[in-house]
């Protein structure tokens, strides 16, 4: 028995065990808790990058066709639940690992003492995210969605305060309704397809009878509603800006990838439910995505609070990704994935930055209450809260210059200006959209509308962020220069540098994304890896 065979299950097992282990230690023993969380996150990152390498052609002999499968409990697909590592899964896992490391380190400075059970909850959030990216079963996807949502409900409440609890209430209710939509969609699909295994769905989708196809398409549409709620697509995203703006800085940064789970699920659905006759989503997905982009753009202009503004850039990036998927051409997928990676790191860094700039204010706002013992310490009877030691730790010099430079980098990233990956991604998206009418027969109206909205979103984002930057750094007279500690500043710099690295390695990265897009477009290899060699996707 080769231990490497168990590789795909480790990104789920490690945070589960680590989260449970942290619970055994009291809140006061911070060093041990942080140590376990850090080791677990580092391990996940290392595993994710190992899988990223294994899915490429660099190791063709290890997994056949670069797709690893793991049958949980040893039951073969489609009867048991399988975990599947293909390029898209490995990519999302690696992205999640990078962001998670930054979030864990950033929260050591201050946020993990603002309430109880921060580190275990964060590990459970990672468990849900990793599981959602790995699973090859639709109902299992629901279970991992609920795990990540349950953790995110508690994390959103982390730090307390009226604004957070209010936002959390809306967040929980909306996501519960989304869960019901998910269940109805899954049940309808199962009733006609007789399977929940994604590879098996791909096989049976093409062979559906016409009467069944209507039910299946309806089920897929209802399932899509659940994913679009999670992805923050208009008109299902009114919960998003409030929730993300109210969340504490590292939690909001961790949520930056949670919306992309919805996008991931839409991409997966698109991959396994392709019909030659009809375009995916019948054009509706594209229109919804355009509306999302416009909503995000208007929100960016209207937002008066920096964290709210960033929340709207998350909406804009979700809209861009959905529009790229909804245009219905495989050529858009590779640039969209590039955009996804860049935008997740950018929003993660930006939320952390916003949390730090909050401390420049001399008058605290609702979300930036200075350390107040939050009643959960009494409610959970875990003893006295650890003493705040805001002045301990190594501060970095030139804090304002650091914040300013990082602000500029974040702005360049989210608006898509050179030399950061946002620009490369946006340029590739525009190029693919302009080519689309000629090469794959997309309506030129759609392609050009996308190009215009994309560029408009960038311009408006630049205007609004420049305004916010001037207000933040130049026009304030009575501000504090915050003391920034290395542990909170380093993750921010790490994310910015990681995106710079992505920009420098744009060639190989784009090649990987193109392979990913090709895999998604023809799920034959995926099906062969999961179900065995004899099965084929029906044309």
């Amino acid at each position, binding site marked *: 028995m080769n231990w490497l065979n168990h590789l795909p299950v480790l990104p789920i097992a490690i945070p589960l065990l680590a989260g449970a282990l942290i619970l055994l230690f009291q809140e006061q023993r911070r060093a041990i808790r942080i140590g376990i969380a850090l080791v677990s996150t580092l391990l996940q990152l290392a595993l994710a990058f190992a899988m990223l390498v294994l899915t490429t052609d660099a190791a063709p002999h290890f997994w056949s066709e670069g797709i690893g499968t793991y049958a949980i409990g040893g039951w073969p697909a489609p009867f048991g639940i399988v975990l599947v590592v293909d390029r898209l899964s490995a990519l999302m896992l690696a992205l999640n690992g990078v962001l998670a490391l930054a979030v864990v380190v950033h929260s050591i400075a201050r946020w993990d003492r603002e309430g109880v059970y921060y580190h275990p909850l964060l590990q459970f959030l990672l468990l849900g995210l990793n599981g959602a990216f790995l699973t090859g079963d639709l*109902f299992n996807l*629901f*279970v991992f969605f*609920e795990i990540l*949502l*349950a953790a995110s*409900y*508690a994390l959103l*409440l982390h730090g*307390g*305060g*009226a604004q957070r*609890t*209010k936002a*959390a*209430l*809306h967040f*929980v*209710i909306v996501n*519960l*309704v989304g*869960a*019901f939509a998910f*269940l*109805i969609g*899954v*049940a*309808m699909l*199962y*009733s006609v397809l007789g399977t*929940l295994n994604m590879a098996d769905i791909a096989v049976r989708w093409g062979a559906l009878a016409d009467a069944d196809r209507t039910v299946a398409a309806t089920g897929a549409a209802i399932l899509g509603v659940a994913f679009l709620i999670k992805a923050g697509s208009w008109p299902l995203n009114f919960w998003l800006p409030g929730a993300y703006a109210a969340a504490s800085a590292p939690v909001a940064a961790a949520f930056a990838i949670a919306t992309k789970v919805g996008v991931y699920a839409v991409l997966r659905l698109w991959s396994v439910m392709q019909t030659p006759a009809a375009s995916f989503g019948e054009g509706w997905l594209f229109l919804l995505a355009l509306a999302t982009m416009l909503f995000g753009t208007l929100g960016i202009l209207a937002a008066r609070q920096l964290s709210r503004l960033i929340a709207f850039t998350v909406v804009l990036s979700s809209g861009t990704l959905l529009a790229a998927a909804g245009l219905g051409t495989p050529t858009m997928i590779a640039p969209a994935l590039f955009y996804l990676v860049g935008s997740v790191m950018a929003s993660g860094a930006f939320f952390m930055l916003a949390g730090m700039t909050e401390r420049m204010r001399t008058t605290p706002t609702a979300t930036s209450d200075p350390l107040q013992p939050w009643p959960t310490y009494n409610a959970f009877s875990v003893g006295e809260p650890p003493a705040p030691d805001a002045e301990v730790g190594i501060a970095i010099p030139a804090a304002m210059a650091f914040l300013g430079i990082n602000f500029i980098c974040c702005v360049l990233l989210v608006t898509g200006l050179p030399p950061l990956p946002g620009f490369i991604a946006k340029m590739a998206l525009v190029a693919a959209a302009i080519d689309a009418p000629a090469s794959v027969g997309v309506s030129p109206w759609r392609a050009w509308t996308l190009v215009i909205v994309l560029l408009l979103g960038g311009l408006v984002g630049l205007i609004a962020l420049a305004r916010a930057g001037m207000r933040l750094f130049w026009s304030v007279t009575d501000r504090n220069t915050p003391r920034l500690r290395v542990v909170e500043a380093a993750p921010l710099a790490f994310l910015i540098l990681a995106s710079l690295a992505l920009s420098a390695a744009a060639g190989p990265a784009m090649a990987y994304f193109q392979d990913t897009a090709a895999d998604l477009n023809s799920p034959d290899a995926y099906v062969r890896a999961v179900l065995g060699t004899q099965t084929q996707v029906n044309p």
Partner: protein
Amino acid sequence: MEAIIALAIGILTACGVWLLLRPRTFQVVIGLSLLSYAVNLFIFSTGRLRVDQPPIVGDAAVNAAQLADPVPQSLVLTAIVIGFATTALLLVVMIAVRGTTGTDHVDGQENEP
């Protein structure tokens, strides 16, 4: 049988959606519970509704088409557990909102008259 189940699901869903749109948190949580019953019944019914059939297959050869599909039944169990847990979590958040804002309105403030 089908008509009764369909009616039950429909009425539960309608009541659930109506309650969900009400402004009080108590109404919302009852609405969500009703919706979850509707969803659970719906999943259960996708495994085919059969009466007067043995629940456990014996040694004798049986016609599988006459039996209900057990997979939706197991799905429903998972869905019930998860729905139960998240509703409990929602109740905690509601108590927190009631405590911090002093009102049971879902927006945390009363509407202006």
